[in-house]
């Protein structure tokens, strides 16, 4: 099992406890509300090095990806991440000190990480690495699944604790269990040596037959085939503590759990040392066949395919922060979000300022440092009209107009009805 994480629903939601959402463990509503129905959608596209726009040019409706454009932006480990989640339905029922919750999510996420040497190899070839051993070690995590959950939050004086229990059904998955690939290009006559300890496990995404016969089925993501297998369980835990009437501390750990992928589970494994030293010309003397270097290379990496049921942990997210009411409808908050993506730890830190402009309109502004990006100026807004409440936010307002040109693009939007 591996652990990987990302933040769902965006940072800003944690500063809007008025919006009942699944991952806000403890939403705060007025005492008159007995029941609420809400929904939310969230998407983000993150990169710690370069955006798609920084490595491509556009001509008409064709985007030409040119690996040369981003070479100077590479870090030792490079990561790109995409997420799209829909909290389709979230129900809350309010008792005196107890809130009961239930709901349904559909979640999709994809992460890739790779060392800069892999990118350099693809962009500039292996001649630059003659006489060296480079670690390529690509990692990919792709997951799509349904979640049914039920939970509660319980107020005990200044402390409110909450938990959600989740029943999960996986749609499709691709998981890198082991990712060691080392390539050596000899300085003698450029013989190649691959040392691999690589395993990809997949359910419904990858079909590998040879290095030039690979099928990736992304169309399985979505609302396909709910609850017919690939079951898993998860739990969210959280607490709020009101130091004073104005100041609350909050903390939560979400998505502790795992999914067992047992429908169409397949393992593709390569483990060993594989050498390509060129052909032996003796094998071609006196015969009709021409030497085929491509055939020799294709036979180099041996991939073993086996049926496999496997477990993958759901992405854990740790959040801790505070929010302080400054008076006059203004409040200030900050949080830290701990994440681990493959082998890289990344902590996002955000500060947020909210102002109730009108009784029906609250606007917020935030600054987030995440994923090695420092230009994330976010905006948020909440609109209320009678029993309806709507919310929209982005971590990087400039990315809304140029989603592919920024390293951090995120948008979330949702709404609720209070009864």
């Amino acid at each position, binding site marked *: 099992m591996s652990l990987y994480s990302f933040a769902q629903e965006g940072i800003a939601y944690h500063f809007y406890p008025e919006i009942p959402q699944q991952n806000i463990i403890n939403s705060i509503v007025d005492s008159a509300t007995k029941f609420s129905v809400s929904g939310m959608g969230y998407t983000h596209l993150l990169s710690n090095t370069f955006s798609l726009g920084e490595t491509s040019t*556009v001509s008409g*409706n*064709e*985007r*030409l*990806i*040119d*690996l*040369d454009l981003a070479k100077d932006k590479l870090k030792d480990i490079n990561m790109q991440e995409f997420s799209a989640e829909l909290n389709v339905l979230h129900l809350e029922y309010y008792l005196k000190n107890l809130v009961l919750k239930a709901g349904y999510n559909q979640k999709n996420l994809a992460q890739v990480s790779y060392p800069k040497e892999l990118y350099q190899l*693809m*962009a*500039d*070839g*292996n*001649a*630059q690495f*003659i006489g060296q051993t480079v670690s390529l070690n690509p990692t990919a995590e792709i997951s799509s699944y349904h979640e049914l959950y039920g939970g509660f939050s319980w107020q005990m004086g200044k402390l409110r604790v909450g938990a959600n229990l989740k029943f999960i059904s996986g749609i499709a998955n691709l998981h890198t269990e082991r990712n060691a690939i080392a390539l050596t*290009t*000899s300085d*003698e*006559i*450029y*013989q*190649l040596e691959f040392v691999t300890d690589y395993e990809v496990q997949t359910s419904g995404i990858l079909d590998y037959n040879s290095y030039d016969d690979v099928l990736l089925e992304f169309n399985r993501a979505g609302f396909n085939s709910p609850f017919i297998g690939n079951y898993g369980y998860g739990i969210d835990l959280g607490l709020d503590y009101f130091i004073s009437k104005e100041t609350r501390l909050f903390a939560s750990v979400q998505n502790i759990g795992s999914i067992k992928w047992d429908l169409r589970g397949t393992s593709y494994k390569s483990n060993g040392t594989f050498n*390509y*030293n*060129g*052909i*032996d*010309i*003796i*094998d*071609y*003397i*006196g*015969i*009709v066949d*021409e*030497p*085929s*270097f*491509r055939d020799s*290379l294709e036979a180099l990496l041996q991939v073993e395919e086996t049926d496999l049921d496997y477990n993958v942990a759901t992405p854990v997210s740790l959040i801790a922060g505070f929010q302080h009411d400054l008076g006059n409808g203004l409040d200030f908050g900050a949080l830290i979000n701990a994440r681990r993506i493959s082998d890289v730890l990344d902590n996002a830190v955000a500060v947020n300022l909210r102002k109730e*402009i*009108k009784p029906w*309109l609250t606007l917020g502004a935030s600054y987030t440092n995440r994923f090695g990006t420092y230009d994330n100026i976010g905006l948020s*807004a909440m*609109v209320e009209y009678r029993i309806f409440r709507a919310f*929209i936010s982005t971590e990087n307002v400039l990315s*809304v*107009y140029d*989603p592919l040109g920024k390293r951090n693009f995120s*948008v979330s939007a949702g709404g609720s009805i209070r009864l």
Partner: protein
Amino acid sequence: MSKSFILLIVILVCFSCVPEEKYKLADIDGEFAIALVDSDITIVDLAEASEQENLEIRVDEEDRITLFYKGDVVEQVSTQIFPPFPYGLYTDITENFSPIDFPVPEGRTVDIAVFDGTKLVFEFESSFLQDVNVSLEFPEIKKDGETWKMDFFIDYQGEPNTFYRSDTIDITDWAINTEDNFLSSNYTAILEDGTSVTLDRVAFWLDFFDFDYVQGFFGGSSAPLVGDVITIDVFNKWLSGGLTFDDPKFNFQVENSFGFPVRMLVNEIVITTISGNQFQLEGEAVDEGVAFNFPSLDEVGEIALTDFNYDNSNTNIGELFNEKAASVFYDVIGVANSESDPMVIGFLTDDSYYKIKVAVELPLLCKLNDLKLTDTFDIDLTEFDDFKSAEFKMITQNSFPFNVELEIDMLDDNGNTLAKLLPDGSVFLTSGNLRADGGVDPLDPLTTLVPIEDDLVDAVKNTKKIAVISTFSNSEIAPDESFWIRSSYGIDFKLGIKVNNEGN
């Protein structure tokens, strides 16, 4: 509608305006390095790779190579020399004692012959009005010192003539012992009352004379051995220069279990060169033929071996072979008892045979004089057709005791030369140092970088064949000496390439 609400709508509309795009990956610029060839090429490898079916490579205890180009195996068995002769007749025994016609071919004598599967049937006719006891023998047919003899009883049944046919009698393992091919029989017929009589008819039927051992004189006879062509490919790659083999041979290996002399006589042995010229093999040994060894009368069942060569000592094979022999045709006959001396008594059994293995034996003891050999390979470089420039890296090491010069020509589909690959046209590999034990200590590997730019790029892209031309010459240390080619000699050849796609 408030301004704030309008602003919110505007934000939502802008957010929804994400155009659809097609994605395409730009051509990859870069420089890629990969190994192409890693070969340790020895004479044995080249010989085995030629896949010539009649070629056998032998390496002796001193690592020296000899090539054997084998011809068809010729074999004759005893039934081809002394076939069973059918009889299938009733032969009357007209007197109580009478000779029997023993159908031995003229000019041959049988002293001893052991029957194998031969069967007899006897018939008797009696007009006597009594039972008759008949005792019949063949005095020359014996086993363990005992003469073949059999008694019969003619049972009178009251008819005027009594006919009696015996059961089939197998005389396997009984042997004829005779002089001058003489075979006889006699019988006695005694009536019931004790009178000795002569029957009206006594006859025997014999299916065929078949023997598992015959001893005698088999006369002179000849049998053509199947002529054959032995193909030799050692000069197939020859382009020019001298390759002189010191000791080529035409080798006969004979197994003979016939107990009489057989001589192989040569009608002709013709050597055809790679240019189509034909030359006769000549010499006293060719005129005399080859006498096969044979087992003596005390060595029945054993196989005598004969190993005979036509070589430089007894023929002109050396000078003919070094005219670049491509094939050898031989037309020979086997002659039994070529002296036709009736005093020479021999034998044969039903298992007797002789087998002749013919081969051109080519010890690789040779001298090189700027010998140029070439081989051409088809090649497909279309997987590299996007490159702008390249560089080959060639590492070679010569483990021959003679110098080797390599040229590599790039050819089109029609065999026309597009360009020479190597800078200065060739690379020269100095011979290794010959040790006293015949092994070679090679010099340090030679690294040659071959840049491929400009016109040479087009030539490489259009190349469909590669011709490798190797020139071998004795080293300056021993310019006129012959060397044994050993199985450890060869060339270590490595080739890698760096291909540059930049600027596409």
